[in-house]
């Protein structure tokens, strides 16, 4: 899809070239991308914005060294270009340097701490490296800034469960509960989370005095909700679900 010479587009035409260039790079149609960038270069010869596209093209080609040089130089001129900052992280990550990506992202977030996508990306990298405490910190930031987004509460709960230990499990249960609240009881993952947490807490607190008073009710509510949904919409999996609850010693 290349924009034809359509005079009715006006100045929008150039934005379109830019968008097509990026889309082409995304699907590795580098010839198309190059054509679009060439058109833009002719029209805007001194433009930094086009310079950014040229650097992205180098990145898409896998010319890591040249792309890095181009991005660094663009950042010298404009240290607040968020897109270029993030492209640099992507560049480093694509080469398999995850700790480098983490360093760059952390530095980026010191300045642009409201960038939710960046926090999420950082959390995902941490999870892939099993650095769960650090991932938890990212989700805490996201929850603070966007407390009504269920996704962050759910991910936070999953991370806490993975970290383990009674305190984390109790907190995870709270966050699964918040997710259930925010999603009108419809989030399958959160419902399962409640069952898993309760089961794990019971196992860990055997012989200790710590009691989880509201837990049997919450767990039976969650398991009942799951059974109802499976019966209604995935009945062939219902027996596996019921057996799973038995294995987890879920009270019903």
């Amino acid at each position, binding site marked *: 899809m290349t924009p034809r010479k359509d005079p009715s587009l006006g100045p929008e035409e150039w934005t379109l070239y830019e968008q097509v260039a990026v889309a082409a790079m995304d699907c590795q149609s580098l010839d198309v991308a190059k054509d679009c960038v060439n058109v833009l270069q002719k029209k805007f010869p001194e433009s930094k914005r086009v310079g950014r596209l040229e650097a992205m093209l180098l990145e898409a080609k896998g010319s890591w060294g040249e792309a890095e040089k181009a991005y660094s130089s663009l950042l010298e001129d404009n240290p607040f270009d968020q897109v270029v900052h993030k492209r640099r992280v992507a560049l480093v990550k694509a080469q398999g340097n995850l700790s480098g990506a983490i360093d760059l992202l952390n530095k980026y977030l010191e300045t642009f701490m409201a960038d939710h996508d960046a926090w999420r990306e950082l959390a995902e990298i941490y999870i892939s490296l*099993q650095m769960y405490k650090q991932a938890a910190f990212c989700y805490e930031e996201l929850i603070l800034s966007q407390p009504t987004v269920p996704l962050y509460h759910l991910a936070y709960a999953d991370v806490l469960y993975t970290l383990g230990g009674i305190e984390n499990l109790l907190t995870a249960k709270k966050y699964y509960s918040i997710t259930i609240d925010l999603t009108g009881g419809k989030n399958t993952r959160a419902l399962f989370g409640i069952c898993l947490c309760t089961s794990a807490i019971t196992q860990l607190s055997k012989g200790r005095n710590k009691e989880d008073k509201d837990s049997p009710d919450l767990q039976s509510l969650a398991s009942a909700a799951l059974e109802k949904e499976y019966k209604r919409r995935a009945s062939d*999996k219902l027996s596996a679900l019921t*057996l799973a609850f038995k294995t987890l010693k879920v009270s019903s």
Partner: protein
Amino acid sequence: MGSGGELRYEISQNAYIKLVLHSLKHKTSAVNGVFLGRSCDDVVQIIDSVPLFHNHLGLLPPLEISLIMIEEHYAALGLGIVGYFHANERSDDVELGNVAKNIGDHIYRYFPQAAILLLDNKKLEALPKGKDRLPVTRLYTRDASKNWKLAGSDGGCRLTTKEPAANVVLLDYISSKKWEDVVDFDDHLDDITKDWLNPELFK
């Protein structure tokens, strides 16, 4: 039988193709799956597979739920979890990471002949050009010092497909973009009407 020195693995075409297709569906993510089967003398027969996740592979809750449900389902068919499949996020990355090893360790506890299969993208890309009948994966088994060891080509073909033309069928499915139809456990957790058994996939 203990350290798996002489052990062979024979994987059914469907179990193999399903997971390779899964990795092609989510090209920009790491993905994983489990193998179901049984052991017969010195051969582990991998009869089926279930694609698991394409997001947050390192988180426990979805993994625990999936393994429990999958085990319950297949126990009724006389099959157990006998191995783990992993495909890294980057196509040129053939390192067996810690997430994969940890999940492998867990499966090993219940099935000591467990194997890990890691997708090898170079082998996959070379398929159309060559006539390779071996699976496009790297095989890892646990050695005596509890490490996951790569089975080298010196050991002969320890991992084979039950059907010799499996790679031909795989290439065919790839050209028809069959991967679009693969459902994994992540998809199921997002929408329980999506069936991780993929009953219609190879019909």
